[in-house]
């Protein structure tokens, strides 16, 4: 009796430990950041491309929050990226508001607001219906921009934007070194936010909604409120990514609202692995590097290469690259044990 009590006591401790320590940073989590810093020193001439990769990582991260954690399937996430991109674009072109960091805040608020309003209406639906409605939302926004091309610049966009030096000190150099570090710093902040949310009780409730929404209703969870909240946050982060996109490219066109953009970020995330935070890093980086490589290899047929990689990924790594690593990890752990 006493022995079994000790055993169950130990089990209790182990179980409690698992939950209390789960949110702590692990050493391996430093890896993507170290790589990002190493890239800065190793490829000093590819910093514009590097910044674009980091922007897409941030965009994919915002999608992971709603798709990977809350299970919201959307094909219109580019809407928020586009709102953010156009917020700083229009502010710079029409209002001469070119201070970069306040621009990010404005983009976050604008995209968050659109996320809140559309989410409040759309998140009563799930599955295919939601897929179509989110897709339609992005198209409506794009067409609104097209309708008022006198303001938005239409598909010709807003070219030749200039922004004030960062913090009033750091100006932008030819190889975009400043941009790269700036985007990396903003990504770190966003990542910290997302990570806190994911490991919070709220984040737990999101996984509950993903796993079984009927049960969530039955235990008294205000499901709609939770979904609208996370959708708003994800929209704001996507908006910041869009704003950085405009700032690093110094131009923006209505193609940011394209279905392509929504689909691409989803492909990146699924390629890397959903619901894992770092799937966004791996997926976006791998996709962008492959796209860059293939398009140099064959400017006309590069999409064939991307397509082939995706087919292989679906066949052999259905849970993404990170999922593949996890499976390999547990496979070797099994072999070591036996």
């Amino acid at each position, binding site marked *: 009796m006493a022995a079994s009590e000790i055993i169950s006591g130990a089990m209790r401790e182990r179980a409690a430990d698992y939950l209390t320590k789960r949110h702590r940073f692990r050493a391996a989590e430093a890896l993507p950041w170290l790589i990002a810093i190493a890239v800065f020193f190793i490829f000093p001439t590819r910093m514009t491309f590097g910044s674009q990769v980091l922007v897409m990582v941030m965009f994919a991260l915002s999608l992971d929050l709603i798709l990977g954690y809350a299970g919201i399937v959307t094909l219109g996430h580019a809407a928020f990226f586009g709102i953010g991109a156009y917020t700083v674009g229009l502010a710079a072109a029409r209002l001469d508001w070119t201070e970069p960091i306040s621009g990010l805040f404005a983009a976050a608020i604008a995209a968050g607001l659109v996320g809140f309003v559309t989410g409040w209406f759309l998140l009563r639906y799930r599955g295919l219906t939601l897929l179509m409605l989110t897709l339609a939302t992005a198209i409506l926004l794009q067409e609104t921009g097209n309708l008022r091309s006198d303001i938005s610049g239409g598909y010709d966009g807003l070219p030749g934007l200039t922004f004030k030096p960062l913090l009033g000190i750091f100006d932008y150099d030819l190889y975009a070194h400043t941009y790269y570090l700036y985007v990396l710093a903003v990504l770190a902040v966003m990542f910290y936010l997302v990570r806190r949310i994911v490991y*919070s009780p709220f984040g737990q409730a999101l996984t509950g909604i993903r796993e079984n929404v009927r049960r969530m209703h039955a235990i*008294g969870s205000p499901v709609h409120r939770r979904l609208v909240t996370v959708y708003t946050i994800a929209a704001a982060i996507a908006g910041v990514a869009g704003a950085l996109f405009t700032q690093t490219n110094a131009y923006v066109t209505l193609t940011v609202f394209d279905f392509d953009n929504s689909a691409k970020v989803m492909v990146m995330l699924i390629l890397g692995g959903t619901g894992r935070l770092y799937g966004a890093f791996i997926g976006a980086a791998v996709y962008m590097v492959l796209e860059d490589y293939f398009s140099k290899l064959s400017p006309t047929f590069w999409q064939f290469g991307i397509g082939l990689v995706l087919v292989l990924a679906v066949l052999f790594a259905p849970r993404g690259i990170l999922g593949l690593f996890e499976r390999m990890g547990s496979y070797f752990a099994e072999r070591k044990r036996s």
Partner: protein
Amino acid sequence: MTAALQVERLNRAFGALPVTRDVDLMLERGARRALIGPNGAGKTTLVNLITGALKPHSGRVLLDGEDITALSQADRARRGLARTFQINQLFRGLTVLENLCMTIGERDGHCDNLWRSAGSKREVIDEALGYLDSLRLTDDALKLVRELPYGRQRLVEIAIALAQKPRVLLLDEPAAGVPSSESHLILDVVAALDPDIAVLIIEHDMDVVFRFAKEITVLVQGAVFTQGTPNEIMNNEQVRAVYLGQEGHRGGHHG
């Protein structure tokens, strides 16, 4: 004394088919009532109407005297109305412990917090482990729900309902799908429930019904056929004819 749960003249139809017809039902505090009836009598529909998963076309549901008919399912749950499902509705990709902690988190409003870590409230974890202990699930605390055998998943289903600290608990065939060699475990748990909780159990196994329930309501074709003590029901010729007669005195489960 107001009843813990009162259902008044509840009606619901699916298209032209009435599935709940003028149902009146009352659970006193600490009641142990069984709801029996042939397949298709509308037992699960009635549970769905009471919990708010379905809206009635007419009638009222009162919880401790408060009219909750217009409230959402989640609002009713937060007021102390819990249920288990005939077919497991669990967070299959999460650990058993997380299933419980989330329930407690939603019950106490912790899940509004976006910033602190979910594991930082030790009392939540301890309470969750307490429920697992009482159902002998502690050893499975860190297993994913989908890795558990079905019988143990049924226990998690009950553990979640208990973690809601309900005043009224609706058990929809708690032993359904569990081999009879294991079902006694679940029924022991049901028998040992807190005497303050009003319990309504849907069950096909007449041994369980007669052992557990102090009152029985018989539902036939969506309407209350009769109600009474187990003895009255057992000796009711009409019930024997429409229900016990055809269904017999058998155990096991069915849809």
